[in-house]
């Protein structure tokens, strides 16, 4: 089993954000989570990356219960993520943002770093080359020396995704990657995500509101409403699901 949510329940003093959510995600492919605002989508990812701890249930990744893993070990387990509001290291350069994403893969020795030994330097150069490749794939290589916080929104969004991708995660979590992007940019992003899946054999779990994007690139879709999982299936199945239609229509009415 690649990734499994097992009866996960999370409460915020009174508010039940996730109600016994059970879900499996297979390796390879793009898995989308959709649902109305406040449905608990981000909360699911936050449980996965151990920012929140559910009161009940288990989350297993490659057989290991993630709830027993410290939050700062998640990345080393092969899970990278982006954030809905980006959470960029806004005073650092774009390059440095991605290098922090590569933190786990670099050897740790503050002493040799402080002295500036050759070995530390050569590892560093190698890491910078990797960063450059990821930036190029995202088409933002020209921004690499600029301060992340000063960049336009769309670029920042890409920096966040790039940071998540550093260190070649086996599982990439994207929280509304297309929010705030225009149509063209969204389309580009869709191609990029599909490429990632193909080229790097990365599994993508993506929260997204843009239905065109979701329907065109996802292999499977889960629908969340008020903390409950109301449907899982292929895009075709989801499009025809009674409860899903009701949840979305109910919201619009």
């Amino acid at each position, binding site marked *: 089993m690649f990734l499994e949510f097992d009866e996960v329940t999370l409460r915020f003093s009174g508010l039940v954000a996730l109600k016994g959510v059970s879900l499996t995600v297979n390796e390879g492919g793009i898995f989308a989570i959709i649902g109305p605002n406040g449905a608990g989508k*981000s909360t699911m990812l936050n449980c996965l990356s151990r920012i929140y701890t559910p009161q009940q249930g288990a989350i297993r990744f490659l057989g290991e219960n993630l709830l027993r893993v410290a939050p700062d070990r998640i990345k080393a387990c092969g899970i990278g993520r982006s954030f809905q*509001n980006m959470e960029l290291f806004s005073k650092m350069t774009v390059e440095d943002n991605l290098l922090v994403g590569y933190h786990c893969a670099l050897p740790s020795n503050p002493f040799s770093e402080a002295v500036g030994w050759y070995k530390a330097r050569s590892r560093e150069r190698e890491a910078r080359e990797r960063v450059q490749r990821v930036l190029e794939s995202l088409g933002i290589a020209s921004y690499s020396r600029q301060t992340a916080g000063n960049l336009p929104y769309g670029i920042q969004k890409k920096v966040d995704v790039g940071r998540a991708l550093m260190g070649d995660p086996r599982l990439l979590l994207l*929280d509304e990657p297309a929010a705030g992007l225009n149509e063209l940019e969204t389309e580009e992003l869709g191609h990029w995500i599909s490429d990632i899946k193909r080229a790097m054999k990365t599994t993508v779990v993506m929260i997204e509101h843009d239905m065109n994007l979701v329907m065109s690139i996802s292999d499977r879709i889960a629908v969340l409403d008020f903390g409950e999982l109301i449907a899982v299936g292929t895009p075709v199945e989801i499009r025809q699901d009674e409860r899903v239609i009701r949840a979305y229509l109910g919201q619009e009415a």
Partner: protein
Amino acid sequence: MLWQTILSGLAVGSLYALSAIGLVLIFKTSNIVNFAQGQMAMLSTFVAFQMLTRWGFPYWLAALASLVFALVFGFFVYIVFLSRLKRAEVLSQIILTLGLYLVFRGVAGVLWGNVPFTMPAAVSTNTVHIGSAVVTWYQLFIMIVTLLLMLVFYAMFRYTKTGLAMRAVSQNQQAARLMGVSLTRIYGATWAVSTALGAIAGLLIAPILFLSPSFMDSVAVKAFAAAVLGGFSSLPGAVLGGLVLGVMESVFGFYISTDLKSTFVFLLIIGILYVRPQGLFGTREVKKV
């Protein structure tokens, strides 16, 4: 004897509480820690002193003048200095208030010199017996004034329009502004009120400590610690923090050692913060991502 120690601790603690409320008030609305608060209180107290002993006005008039001075002073400090720094780093704002601290201290030194004066008290400093404890009327007076002020504040926050606006601003500045609340006016009002609070604390403390440009220093530091202990964003927390700090100091000083008083007090504060990093009354803010 324990009673005695606790009671005098409460009296000192009330003073910390008063200053702490002023700090918290400003912090809640504008996110600034005003390190000049103690010095602004000191200057206001000197205004009363000047009127009282040099110009011979009656106490109530001097005290009133001092309060009016504090209100205006606080308002202007905000308008002239802090309002220009709205977009700057919080640390820059803190350093600005530290700079003002030095300026005010220096000005007081130039005007009144560094020789401590005796400041007349509002009520007599004779002692009374409460049970087995001996306290002065003055200590009781301090506690009562603190209590009254807290009630007034509570009422003001709850029932007046300005109070409502202040609460709105402290919850969400952007939304409050959209609702037509003038941020500058509210911030100015907050600075005025909390400076006045500091002035009251100054007027109450000066008779105990002697009046000099540095007389509020230790109180200001303790008020900061008290506010933090209470959570820094809660007015009841600030009061409780002040009282706890006052009693702790008094008890440590009496039973353990006066030499290491601050050490013990701060060790305890660190201990409390270790268990409750958000302070006694603070709420832990979880950042949504």
